[in-house]
């Protein structure tokens, strides 16, 4: 009796990789260069072929990272609540609510609280002051102005002197110091979808976003696959790759069987970390010298192989074609054995 699994399964030595590559590559040629326009942060997120290349190349960070933050049920229904959380999440810098000026003569930095901007962002003078405390313990306060005085520090190797250069450096840091929000998340927009409100923001910081009590930690998603791998692990990264590729294809209204995409994701993640497809990843790790030499950087591979006296065991497809043997796929690997009747 044939089991369901047997009838559905792939036959041994079926060339799944080639079929997968062709099944994704062919519709890939039809991808339009047309970009779709969105309001807000998702506007410049690459779609189509550029995005596909980005995923498959396993880039450290996407060109435009985007994070979708879903809220706990009690918050998600209300627009005002969601907007409040969005404000809390989006990072706000000192320079957004205050004017920062450095005095190179006195070696001080003065931060002037801008009441109008502060009110608009509901940041009080006290919160601003709190944010500046990381730079110096004693802050001189004069009305709306906070002055940071730099003091020389004593280190093991000697005295670290305060110079005009270090003031300049610090003042830049002060400007970009976080007053509120999650680092790495910016431009939060409240959107509606699936009968609830959620926040879409630029950048990605899953851990930071989850710290907010209103955020549902089980429903935070980013298009930054490397970060998903870092936070949730390799299985989640695999699923993210599948979802991202599928989204690209769906957006162009191209249909590719999900199993082909899953195979790609599996190939990229099976070793425990994300590997790119190409010379620096999968193809560069083929066993055979000839197979690698046939793909890219022929001379490098041949020279290395000769330097280390490598042996070509002819297990791949390309290698066997070069040599002129049957290839170990399909009919090339299956052997028919007949039992003779006695």
């Amino acid at each position, binding site marked *: 009796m044939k089991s369901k699994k047997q009838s559905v399964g792939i036959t041994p*030595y*079926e*060339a799944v990789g*080639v*079929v997968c*590559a*062709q099944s994704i590559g062919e519709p890939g040629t039809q991808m339009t260069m047309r970009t779709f326009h969105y309001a807000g942060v998702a506007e410049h997120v690459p779609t189509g072929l550029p995005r596909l290349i980005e995923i498959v190349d396993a880039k450290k960070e996407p060109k435009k990272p985007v994070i979708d933050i879903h809220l706990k049920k009690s918050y998600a229904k209300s627009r005002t609540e969601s907007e409040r959380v969005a404000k809390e999440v989006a990072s706000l810098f000192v320079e957004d609510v205050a004017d920062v000026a450095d005095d190179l003569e006195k070696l001080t930095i003065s931060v002037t609280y801008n009441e109008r901007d502060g009110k608009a962002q509901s940041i009080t003078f006290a919160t601003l002051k709190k944010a500046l405390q990381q730079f110096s313990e004693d802050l001189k306060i004069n009305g709306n102005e906070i002055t940071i005085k730099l003091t020389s520090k004593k280190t093991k190797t000697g005295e670290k002197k305060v110079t005009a250069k270090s003031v300049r450096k610090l003042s830049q840091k002060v400007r970009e110091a976080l007053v509120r929000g999650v680092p790495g998340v910016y431009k939060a927009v409240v959107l509606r979808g699936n009968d609830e409100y959620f926040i879409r923001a630029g950048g990605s910081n899953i851990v930071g976003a989850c710290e907010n009590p209103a955020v549902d930690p089980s429903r935070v998603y980013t298009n930054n696959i490397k970060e998903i791998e870092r936070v949730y692990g390799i299985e989640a990264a695999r699923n993210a790759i599948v979802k991202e590729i599928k989204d690209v294809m769906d957006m162009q209204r191209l249909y590719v069987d999900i199993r082909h995409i899953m195979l790609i994701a599996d190939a990229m993640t099976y070793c425990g970390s994300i590997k790119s497809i190409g010379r620096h990843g999968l193809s560069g790790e083929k066993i055979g010298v000839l197979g690698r030499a046939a793909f890219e950087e022929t001379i490098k591979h*041949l020279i290395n192989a*000769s330097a280390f006296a490598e*042996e070509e065991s002819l297990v791949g*497809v390309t290698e066997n*074609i*070069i*040599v*002129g*043997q*049957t*290839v*170990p*796929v*399909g*009919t*090339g*690997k299956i052997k028919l054995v007949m039992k003779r009747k006695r």
Partner: protein
Amino acid sequence: MVKRKKKTDTAIFLNGRIVGTHPDGKSLANRLRERRRMNELSNQVNIHYNEKLNELHILTDKGRVRRPYVVVENGKSRLTPEILARLKNNELTWHHLVKMGIIEYLDAQEEEDTLIAISENELTPEHTHLEVHSANIFGIVAGVLPYPEHNSSPRITMACAMAKQSLGVYSTNFNNRYDTRGYVMYYPQEPLVQTKIYKALNLREKAAGQNCIVALTSYHGYNMADAIVVNRSAVDRGLHRVAMFKTYETEERMYPGGQKDKIELPTPEVVGFRGEEAYRYLDEDGIIISESEVGGKDVLVGKTSPPRFLEEISVFGAVEEKKRESSLSLKSGEKGKVDSVLVTEGPSGNRLVKIRIRSVKTPEVGDKLASRHGQKGVIGLCAKQEDMPFTSSGIVPDLVVNPHAIPSRMTAGHLLETLGGKAGCIGGMLMDATAFSGNTEDEFKAILTKNGFNEHGEEILYDGLTGRKITVKIFMGAVYYQRLHHLVSNKMHVRSRGPVQLLTHQPTEGRAREGGLRFGEMERDCLIGYGGSMLIKERLLEESDKTVQLVCTDCGSLATHDHARNRDMCPICQSETVEPVEMSYAFKLLLDEIKSLCIFPRIMLKKKG
């Protein structure tokens, strides 16, 4: 250096080089133009005033594309009715009009300063120029097309591209010319529906096409997807028949050492003699006789060359002349008749022989035809006239074109030409299809109804196979069709065996070398995806560059067969345990190249199990 005295001064440029300044560039430009129109300046000078940059450009260089316009003053054309009348009486010519400043040529730069009216009735005081004729905006190539204003623009572009590929009479002195390749149509016709520009260019003298009776219907699936069914009897009567002329040439070359090629009848002593059979058409002088029918690799001009190396001293001490065969022969797969022979002198004073071969190219399945509306198609069937639909008066179409070719391409002009061609035939006149001003559909309808035809150009047809009346009326008319340069007989190519390359032992490439068709990387991928392992091996090894090489089982290097001692031997380790191994010649080459890089590849053999 030229400096502006005031900031508002205009910089004057002559052919892009700054030459001076002027306080008021605009009025200077106008005055210069006035001078040009009064013939005080050459009419080849163009003036352009750039208001934004406050620059005046005077252009006199070569290579500017210019086109003529009628000059307009105060909303009135300078080409007045009086002048037109004098023109009609042949008192004036075009050149007079240019001299009189009625017509002037503008280049791309000066055109920027103008407002050009397309027709005279839209003139306003702002206009500076008027098109000579509204159809002029199409230019020369598109201006020849009928009813371009009824077609979609991509189809016009395609029609222009295809008109250049049409076969006709390329030059009226073709019979005295020895072009490498040339086609001449047997019975070219001028189109029934033509434009004013066509007439002005006098293209009827070099027509490239024929008026065909076209039925717009299907024919047993033989005209699907832009195929065309043609009437075989019409083809037999000479429809779209073309003669191809091809010139072969050879020269008596001089070699260092005072030796020379000789055009003669090669004798059997010559090295590489091809056998008496090959030279059967040659005259005593070694040159082929006119009007002999040649084919295959027949020799056209017998020629012998001196030996490549100066050795071969015979036993008797005398230098023996061993000549090489270097005759000129017809390319394989071609045939025809020798049209004419020309014996002359080459550029370096050598004797030069040119042979012109003529072959008739009758339209056949696979040849390309096109109307002047970007409607191209390939002949799908040469149907017998008896089997084709006919009208009650016995008219059988020359071509059957599929109606699916029309709607999505929006070439209404094609339909209008069909109707116009029909009306022209019946009315006995040529129709004008100039853009924006040609004969109208209503005029055609009037002619058709007056002569008792259906006003829409539809006909009741009878099926040629069954004799039954076809239940729908079918649109039929006369359309000017062109035969395009792409003839199957010049492209057809097959190979089952043939020559291989010297270096790689792989099949040669290209039709001219009787080559194979490349089974490329992507095709290979498809077979891998299919799992056809044996098929890949057959394509890439058996049918390509398979060799058997000897491999030493001891050291793994390629071994050789020692013919003197008649045994296999490894030249590296002297071992005689050698096995024959089947591999691709390309792989053997790879091993050789790696060896030349001082890397020693070893082949470790395993028993097949």
